[in-house]
């Protein structure tokens, strides 16, 4: 598989004090914005983003160009751009790197995007914990404003643009776009019923585009290269470009890696992240944040039919399928945020599952009964399994509870809880059965730790 050897999105990460305007500009920052605002038409820019086939980097993978096309403005309405920097999906840590190491790329992306969708104001909603990222962004915005790239006449053109940072205050659910809008408006971060979708009625009742940080930060490269060329960097149809992959857990070099869309999980773990910690066997990998169903390297792709989108990989391991929004959906999981959590053979999956379900119980906003009750119930059952008080029926109970949570709620949080739970039981059923009958094996039962000791920590 070919690789783009020149980093694009992260090309300025290694520069000394890369967050400072002068340093970023020396490496090309704002050249694309200047050119776009002074020589191109908004509809041309929207067309480039459409041709780029960029799938939203926030988790759902919706094509950004198509979303921009849904904007529906009535007379006199303002359009807003809202950039989702809530980054709270367990396992995900990529957007933070953009804000901390190259904030000007995000600001430049925001300027071009505002111009392209005819917005005058962009809000960057940053999760409350990231005070440092907020400071970096605010400095970047102030410097860009001072330089004349923001404000009444950015680059001298007659299209005012302001970018503001809005800090959250600790709530995973505020990453869901309508909860985020409520939080931006000074309300409790509870999701709203859709429709209306934000593109029709979003921030302050106005048509609004909500995009992830990485999506917007990719816009300058898309405009510079042209949508077709950028799209062609990816290896998959309808899913273009490069993206930031993250790896955490039991690998030698956890971290972030820029690569084209379409590398495989095996390449990500072995070639990029240095292989498994201590060369232990890979047991399971959660591919793109905790809401995406787990992959089991022992499992083979079952697609004998030539029409099946994964037919090309029939008989190969799940982790040899190229990572893309559509390929992963066909595999029964999701690409999500593209940040993988890697687990070796020392991890007990029941315990790992309990850790995550506890997260969902804590973070459910409580508006919908199936979600509020379901998350609590899942944790109770998993607690029993982990504490040796389980019974064999509990395994099917986990499945039933999850099934009842799906499709019955205001937002996708409940599905994002139930799907990974179902995936765990489906792929590691014996382990759940074992726990139901015998409790956890000796050496695993460390209160609520998944694996309490890693060499070098204690």
């Amino acid at each position, binding site marked *: *598989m070919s690789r783009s050897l020149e*980093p694009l999105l*992260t090309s300025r990460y*290694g520069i*000394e004090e890369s967050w400072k305007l002068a340093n970023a500009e020396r490496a090309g920052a704002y050249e694309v914005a200047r050119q776009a605002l002074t020589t191109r038409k908004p509809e041309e820019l929207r067309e480039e983003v459409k041709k780029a086939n960029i799938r939203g980097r926030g988790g759902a993978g919706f094509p950004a160009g198509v979303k921009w096309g849904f904007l529906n403005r009535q007379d006199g309405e303002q359009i807003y751009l809202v950039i989702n920097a809530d*980054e*709270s*999906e*367990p*396992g*995900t*840590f990529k*957007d933070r790197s953009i804000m901390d*190491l190259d904030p000007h790329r995000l600001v430049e992306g925001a300027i071009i995007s505002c111009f392209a969708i005819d917005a005058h104001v962009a809000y960057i909603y940053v999760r*409350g*914990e990231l005070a*440092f990222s907020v400071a970096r962004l605010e400095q970047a915005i102030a410097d860009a404003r001072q330089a004349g790239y923001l404000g009444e006449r950015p680059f001298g053109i007659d299209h005012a643009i*302001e970018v*503001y940072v809005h*800090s*959250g*205050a*600790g*709530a*995973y659910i505020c990453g869901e776009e309508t909860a985020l809008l409520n939080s931006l*408006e*000074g309300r409790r971060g509870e999701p709203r019923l859709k429709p209306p979708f934000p593109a029709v009625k979003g921030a*302050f009742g106005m048509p609004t585009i909500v995009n992830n940080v990485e999506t917007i930060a990719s816009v300058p490269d898309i405009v510079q290269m042209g949508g077709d060329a950028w799209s062609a960097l990816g290896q998959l149809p309808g899913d273009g470009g490069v993206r930031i992959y993250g790896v*955490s*857990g*039991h690998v*030698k*070099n*956890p*971290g972030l*890696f*820029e690569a084209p869309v379409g590398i495989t999980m095996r*390449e990500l773990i*072995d*070639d*990029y992240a240095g*292989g498994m910690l201590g*060369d232990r*066997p*890979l047991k399971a990998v*959660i591919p793109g944040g905790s809401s995406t169903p787990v992959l089991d*390297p*022992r499992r083979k792709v079952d697609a004998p039919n030539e029409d099946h989108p994964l037919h090309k990989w029939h008989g190969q391991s799940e982790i040899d399928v190229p990572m893309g929004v559509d390929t992963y959906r066909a595999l029964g999981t999701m690409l999500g945020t593209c*940040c993988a*959590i890697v687990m070796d053979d020392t991890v007990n999956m029941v315990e790992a599952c309990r850790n*995550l379900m506890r997260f969902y119980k804590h973070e459910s906003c409580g508006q919908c009964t199936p979600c509020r009750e379901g998350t609590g119930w899942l944790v109770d059952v998993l607690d029993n399994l982990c504490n040796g008080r389980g019974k064999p029926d509990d395994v099917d109970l986990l499945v039933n509870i999850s099934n009842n949570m799906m499709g019955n709620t205001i937002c996708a949080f409940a599905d994002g809880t139930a799907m990974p739970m179902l995936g765990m039981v489906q792929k590691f059923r014996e382990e759940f059965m074992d726990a139901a009958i015998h409790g956890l094996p000796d050496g695993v039962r*460390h*209160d*609520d*730790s*998944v*694996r309490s000791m*890693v060499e070098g*920590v*204690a």
Partner: protein
Amino acid sequence: MAFALTPEREQQVDDILTRYPERRAALLPVLWLCQRQNGWISPEVVEYVAERLELSTAIVKGVVTFYTMFFDEPVGENVVWVCRTLSCDLRGGKAIQDHLEKKLGCTAGHTSPDGKFTLLKAECLAACGQAPMVQINDYYYENLNVAQLDRIIDAHAAQGGEDAAAEFSTCATFGAPHGSRGGSVTSAPPPPSREAVRLASQPPPANDEKGEGS
């Protein structure tokens, strides 16, 4: 006693109000300003914010209780959040929490007897590749081990948060050892190493040279 923001912060409130088409949208930013000054959102703060933004105190309270980072009771001089979500736990998050509880003399959810530290469990803090980690006040401390954690806590006790952060926080380097820059982010992909592509669920062959040459 009634709560009031300092004149500089009052100025900031005026500035914040210009950013939004609705006054209410300033609620979170103004609560943050108040908490930074007061340490927590006391009933007096709620009164002040309600009046300043022309909202009822019930609305302000409803918002404060929704968000875990707004404290509706006093906290210690430093707030330590220990991440216990999966990626951190896979790399020793529990050992970090256990050690903190011993060292600070309080369990998670409580404040140390000397009032210097409040210890809280956190959910994933977007630093999973630099696990295990803690957040203390506004700053991240990543790729921790217990010895480093001891130094960090001692520095907070002796010098206060800002000085300790300047010396030990990994925010400025995105998790890399202090003094280097952004080292944990690989922007250039490693050269493809065909050697490395093997079935990872099998033990490596005895003479495996994986990882070398990259």
